[in-house]
């Protein structure tokens, strides 16, 4: 299966119905994307496919053929959101953080609090109560 992964061409031998989450974590060795539920409820497995946030635990590999897939690793380690999440304590245990950041990346610049709350309703966090996540995303 050919697709673009974090800006680079990828060619992965895996079953077309394998979950994208498993392919990323195992065949591609990128363990930054996490499994929290396997139901598409928690958002910890969020990646971007053609710029849209999706739950990779629900995507069959065949659905990303020819697409651009971006994972948390694609942001490197110096994206301003990453720094903000650590400094503002938007990440406590960190397990929801990669998915949260990938979802947040789609919010554009200076999103309103209402927009953040609505668009991140599919990303569950059990540690923070979300307040620090808002602070991290809205940090100038």
């Amino acid at each position, binding site marked *: 299966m050919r697709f673009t992964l974090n800006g680079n061409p990828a060619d992965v031998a895996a079953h077309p119905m394998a979950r994208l989450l498993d392919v990323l*974590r195992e065949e591609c060795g*990128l*363990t*930054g*994307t*996490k*499994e*929290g*539920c*396997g*139901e598409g*409820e*928690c958002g*910890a497995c969020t990646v971007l496919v053609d710029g849209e946030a999706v739950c990779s635990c629900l995507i069959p590999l065949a659905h990303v053929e020819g697409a651009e897939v971006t*994972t*948390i*690793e694609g*942001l*490197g*380690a110096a994206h301003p*959101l*990453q*720094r903000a*999440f*650590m*400094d*503002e*304590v938007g*990440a*406590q*245990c*960190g*397990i*929801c*953080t*990669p998915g949260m*950041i990938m979802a947040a990346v789609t919010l554009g610049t200076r999103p309103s609090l209402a927009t*953040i*709350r*609505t668009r*991140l*309703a*599919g*990303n*569950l*966090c*059990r*540690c*923070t*109560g*979300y*307040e*620090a996540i808002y602070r991290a995303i809205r940090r100038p």
Partner: protein
Amino acid sequence: MADRRGAGPGERYAVGGAVGRSVPRKDGIGKASGSARYADDLVFPGMLYGRTIRTTIPCGRIRSIALEFDPAGFTVVGHRDIRGRNVVALLVDDQPCLVETDVRHGAEPVLLLAHEDREKLLAARVAVVYEPGTPVFDPEHSPRSFKDLVIEKGTLAAGFASADFVVEGTYRTGHQEHVYIEPNGVVAVPEDGGIAVYGSIQCPFYVQQALATLLGPAVSRIRVIQTETGGGFGGKEEYPSMLAGHAVLLALKAGRPVKMIYDRAEDMLATTKRHPAIVRHRTGVTRDGRLVAMAVDVVIDGGAYATLSPVVLARGAIHAAGPYRCPNVRITGRAMFTNTPPNGAFRGFGVPQTAFAVEVHMERIAEALGMDSVRLRERNALRPGDTTVTGQRMGQDCSARQVLRAALRKSGYHRKRKAYAGTDRGIGLALYYHGCGFTGSGEVRLASRASVELTATGVRILSSSTEFGQGTRTMHAQIVADALAMPYDQVEVALPDTSLVPDSGPTVASRTCMIVGGILERAATELRERLGGLPPAEYFRRHGPLKVTRQYQQPEWIRWDETSFRGDAYATYGWGCDVAEVRLDRDTGEVHPLRLTAVTDVGKAIHPALARGQIEGGTAQGVGYALLEHVVMREGLMANAQLANYQIPTTLDTPRIDVILLENPYPGGPSGAKGLGELPMNGPAPALVNAIRHLGLDLRSIPALPEAVLEAMCVSR
């Protein structure tokens, strides 16, 4: 005082200036970059995957087990493979690691399978034939208790005789599931004639001790290493001992690493939950609002095995009369057996249950008296010099009235209480406290130890305290840096690996800062004396390694009688007052939490941003407990074991949370710090239900689901 922010990242701190600032965290960037390694991220050569075959009836006996799959490539483990004792060692060693014949709940582990191929592993069929028994599901009609207790103060009868009013009430709380976003998981790896376990674990030494019991003297080298852990909340306090035992048994039999990561459904179904509770109050009060007699009965549902139920009961009971003074109190409690998966530790550990009951009951007492419930609380709140139900005398570190006053002020409570009357909005409050550290003599028994040693670049902290989001690494490093008068970024924190660090006790019970941080502060202080003025790295260069280990020392003033529950139950308490504002949708019974003000006294906020994060997170978890989280039990098992059906708060369910941190120091804590991890769990449920009361609806159990609210609306019409 509001929380304070430290300087930004990358700044050097003046020596002696880490505590009290929101310094850059020791976790680095890994959590935000995806490079932090959690249990399921680990891969070992030759690794197998493990699976648990579980019982399917709640009660009875196993007659036969038949393997209905091609055994090629499989490792199969049953109870006969256990060389040591077939128990998951904890308080009372009553829970088997693998079922022998007796079945006591519907998710007990019977057989373990391992295979390289996960599809083959999951496809394997095992046929178990049972002789079903008659299960017990109602804790109030159970024939057996794990623990009974009585706590008495004064003379109850005399108290009731002097009362002008007597108010009674029964309050109920349900199960709560932790929903750490990372499920339970471990990897067991044979090594050097022994075994290593990497896992999502709060208490590595609990696991080490449980494995030693399970494996017996044949396996002498057992090493437990905590991986980056995606949330704990108590759900990874005792359960990992069971899971690690399973993975280790498979790994030793196969001679290969075995990874066992629960999926969400198995985790919710089979692992521990918060104990449901039924709390009955009977209270005598004078017409001017003084509490003169309190009788409280606490029943908790322990599930099929004891686990930590005796201690949950003890802590819940000790707090059951609330943060109030009353001369005559009798608290009875029992932890009951039922044929359900055992319940266990969950943030708050009995207090969210009893705090809910007493704070809603106080509201009803006020109504019976025709008195403002704030005045009732002010009149009876504990003050320095007052004694608690166990006879403990409050010191200057008692902050009940301060948190109440601050919460009233910050939230505009009185004004809104009037303004909201007769509208679709309600406002309510709850006053609460939480004992820090293990109950009674628990800390003495733990005899925790922690070390500070020199390195070529500074110092290293060695403790078994685990980081799982609450900021352990960071906060310990701040304390040690200041005690050594050295830069914070020259302090590193060792990985909790039981072969490298001393046993600092479990990371639970709001003790990690106050108790373990206190031990580290003493170790660092002694180390500083030994350095004779040299910077640590310089001393290391000249004289070589140096390590100081210190052990817990109980404050000399503490007196505690374990059998009668009398004396100083805890070294100190955290204090809190929550004010909740809600809007009721009368069409649907949905209660929308609009704002939650949480005022907490934490003694000293070592890292203000982390402390604030703990209060915000615990408050949100309390909102879920109060309004959303409902474990549906059918035939003794959770019927809604999916995140689609067990709902925790999303962004849109979580109100704005305003946190105020007060600092009324506990002299025995590092820089005056008390514990705070569990405190925020106790306030939201009663505050929210009291806000619902303000709307005229009498609810006495949680979760306050829309179904119950709508029914209460019908009753009140």
